[in-house]
């Protein structure tokens, strides 16, 4: 591979001169049965992007329907099914697996100087289990016409005439995939770190994947059980939550949110990890406080388990529990704020470069803070009574999930594109894409805050005519966002074929994954590197960092 860039340092001794992971073998079966974490990551990449496209398509259909107060393109039944499809697809098929299975899979072993994950076969199994789960879930929803929304609240889920069990089975299967992925990361990060890497210089992205994996392993089984019980109620008519035989539907909500609230942190923590890598790289400066980011990452993962009841303020939980959950929810905001301030402080006196990933960071910063602050608002009981189940909540969680997670995903896609595929993308198109994503997103969801505050309930098919202008605005935004995403991803697709060859470290980062060639060889490094320095130590020159990594 030729490398035209003048600043190229000689290829690392630790990188070796093996062929890269894309080329060391070829043929379809060398991909389908691969155990290489990088190839599995690429397969996940294709899968989750397809799911994003599908979920986005459903979203656009929904927004189109909402252009007019009455029927626009579909009837109410179809609409109910479609928002379930949108929610389930986006939550379980895109957001939950997105960053961990793609970028986590690709980068965690490289960042810790390992040759692969601890259990490569399990990793491949996890991919196929995901595919199976995706097929069963989507097939079940389309054929069965599930209309419960992604939360499956009983008693409606108990009585809905539509078919529910296939979807529940599908999500259960996806859960198995999640647990296996999380388990693999935990064991890998514990046991396969290269010499020199301790818990004090572990790259921040790896830290965030570690925290996410803890949540995956601890919370997902509870979801499995919640869905299993709903399945028994719906499929066999047991009535485990049916008040007519002494049951209590609120208990289902407890169990469901015990997973599904931490699931929000499964979505956002990896994005925060991506941001924590991008900010030091493009500011050319060590993070204002490494420890602050690490501690807040772990703290968010744990406090995230203590706040689930804020979804249930109006469901009839006790005042004591509601107070407890309301207060603890504020802690998440505190730890998120610590992160935000640390990132901003890192920018100070840094030599900042405005590449596409950095632009996504700024979008992330604004949207995440906005979404987070409205989160504090809806976690306040007295306010939640007004906003609960309105578009305000919808806008709030889309600011976190799309504004936070999806922006983080795109930032990662651009930041690590040269490393993953060995090519450079078009910077100008990338930046236009990032700006368009931001604008489209803002125009879509800002009106929804206003709608919610005016009393527009979520999941409704029709609405009063004086809400229409805001709905039209929101729909227009959705189409801008959709086109922007196509532009952003199309730019990467074009670069895949036409992009300039990337050098090993185009961003001049000190993070460990940039030590090896782009794309990395099959074993990530020629020889196990010695990574006893900080991945954010910009007092070292690139050559010094390389020399240190190659030293025995």
């Amino acid at each position, binding site marked *: 591979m030729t490398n035209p860039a003048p600043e190229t340092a000689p290829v690392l001794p630790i990188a070796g001169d093996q062929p890269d992971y894309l080329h060391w073998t070829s043929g379809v079966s060398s991909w389908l049965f691969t155990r290489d974490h990088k190839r599995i990551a690429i397969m996940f990449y294709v899968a989750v992007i397809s799911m994003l496209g599908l979920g986005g398509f459903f979203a656009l259909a929904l927004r189109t329907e909402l252009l007019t107060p009455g029927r626009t393109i579909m009837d109410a039944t179809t609409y109910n099914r479609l928002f379930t499809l949108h929610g389930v697809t986006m939550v379980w098929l895109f957001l939950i697996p997105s960053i961990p299975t793609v970028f986590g899979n690709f980068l965690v072993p490289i960042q810790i100087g390992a040759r692969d994950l601890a259990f490569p076969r399990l990793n491949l199994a996890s991919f196929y289990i995901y595919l199976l789960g995706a097929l069963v879930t989507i097939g079940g929803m389309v054929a069965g016409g599930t209309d419960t929304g992604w939360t499956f609240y009983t008693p409606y889920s108990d009585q809905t005439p539509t078919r529910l069990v296939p979807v529940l089975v599908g999500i259960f299967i996806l859960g198995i995939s999640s647990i296996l992925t999380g388990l693999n990361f935990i*064991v890998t990060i514990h046991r396969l770190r290269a010499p020199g890497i301790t818990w004090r210089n572990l790259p921040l992205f790896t830290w965030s994947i570690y925290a996410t994996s803890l949540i995956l392993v601890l919370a997902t089984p*509870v979801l499995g*059980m*919640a869905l299993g019980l709903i399945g028994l109620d719906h499929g066999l*008519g047991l009535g485990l939550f049916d008040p*007519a035989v002494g*049951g209590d539907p609120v208990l289902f909500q*407890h169990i469901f949110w015990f997973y599904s609230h931490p699931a929000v942190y499964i979505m956002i923590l990896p994005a925060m990890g991506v941001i924590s890598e991008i900010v030091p790289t493009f500011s050319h400066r060590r993070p204002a406080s490494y420890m602050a980011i690490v501690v807040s990452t772990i703290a968010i993962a744990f406090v995230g388990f203590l706040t689930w009841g804020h979804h249930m303020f109006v469901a009839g939980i006790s005042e004591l529990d509601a107070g407890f959950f309301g207060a603890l929810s504020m802690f998440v905001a505190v730890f998120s704020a610590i992160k935000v301030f640390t990132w901003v402080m890192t920018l100070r006196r840094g030599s900042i470069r405005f590449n596409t990933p950095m632009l996504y960071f700024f979008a992330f910063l604004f949207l995440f803070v906005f979404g987070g602050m409205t989160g504090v608002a809806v976690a306040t009981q007295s306010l939640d009574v007004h906003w609960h189940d309105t578009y305000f909540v919808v806008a709030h969680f889309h600011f976190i999930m799309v504004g936070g997670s999806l922006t983080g995903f795109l930032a990662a896609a651009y930041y690590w594109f040269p490393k993953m595929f060995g090519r450079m993308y078009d910077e100008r198109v990338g930046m236009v894409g990032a700006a368009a994503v931001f604008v489209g997103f803002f125009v879509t969801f800002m009106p929804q805050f206003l709608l919610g505050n005016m009393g527009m309930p979520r999941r409704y098919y029709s609405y009063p005519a004086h809400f229409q202008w805001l709905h039209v605005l929101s729909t227009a935004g959705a189409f801008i966002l959709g086109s922007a995403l196509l532009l952003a991803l199309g730019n990467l697709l074009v670069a895949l074929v036409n992009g300039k060859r990337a050098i090993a470290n185009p961003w001049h980062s000190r993070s460990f994954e940039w030590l090896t060639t782009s794309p990395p060889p099959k074993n990530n490094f020629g020889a196990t590197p010695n990574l006893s320095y900080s991945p954010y130590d910009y007092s070292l020159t690139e050559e010094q960092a390389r020399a240190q990594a190659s030293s025995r």
Partner: protein
Amino acid sequence: MPKPLLGEQYSDLEQQDGALQFGMWVFLGSELLLFSALFALYASYRSMYPADFEQAIRHNTLVYGTANLYLLLTSSLCAALAVWAMRRGRPRLTLGLLATTIVMGLGFLVIKGAEYLVHIREGALPGRYYHWHELPSFGANRFYSLYWVMTGLHALHVTAGLCVLGWLSLRVMKGAYSVEHHAGLEMGTLYWHLVDIVWIFLWPLLYLS
């Protein structure tokens, strides 16, 4: 004795065995959490209907449940001793102990099945199917609903554990494990012990007043 394969991501077998065992422990933790929702539901419904639960427990089939407890505790000992024997380099003893464990596990399922028949005859079925006229309360209904789901899930785990033990026996017969390296055997028996631990907690909750 064939040496186990070393994955290329590991530097030596010790690291590989350590990673495998740690992975198993994380998996067991996750597996325990599968039961967490049921334990939590049990606690909630019990505090909703304390007297009904007491009454329902007193009417439950204590003899079956207790026999099964002793059976599982003993089988757990056998499984532990199977690993001990392998460490001492006595694979035939390991095989015998594994077989004993399997027999006890099957015994557990037989007793469980007999117990289920008693409940079916009484009408102590879960949820809307419950029609035991001796105990017509909401609380008794909740108790037996949870009884069925909890023991049912546990019985599934027993079945899975038996499959694992059967597979381990085959591996031992093939001579796949050695004195130094038997991580697979260790991991498989860990699963069986977990099944035992779950029953250690289900027994007082479902049978002891």
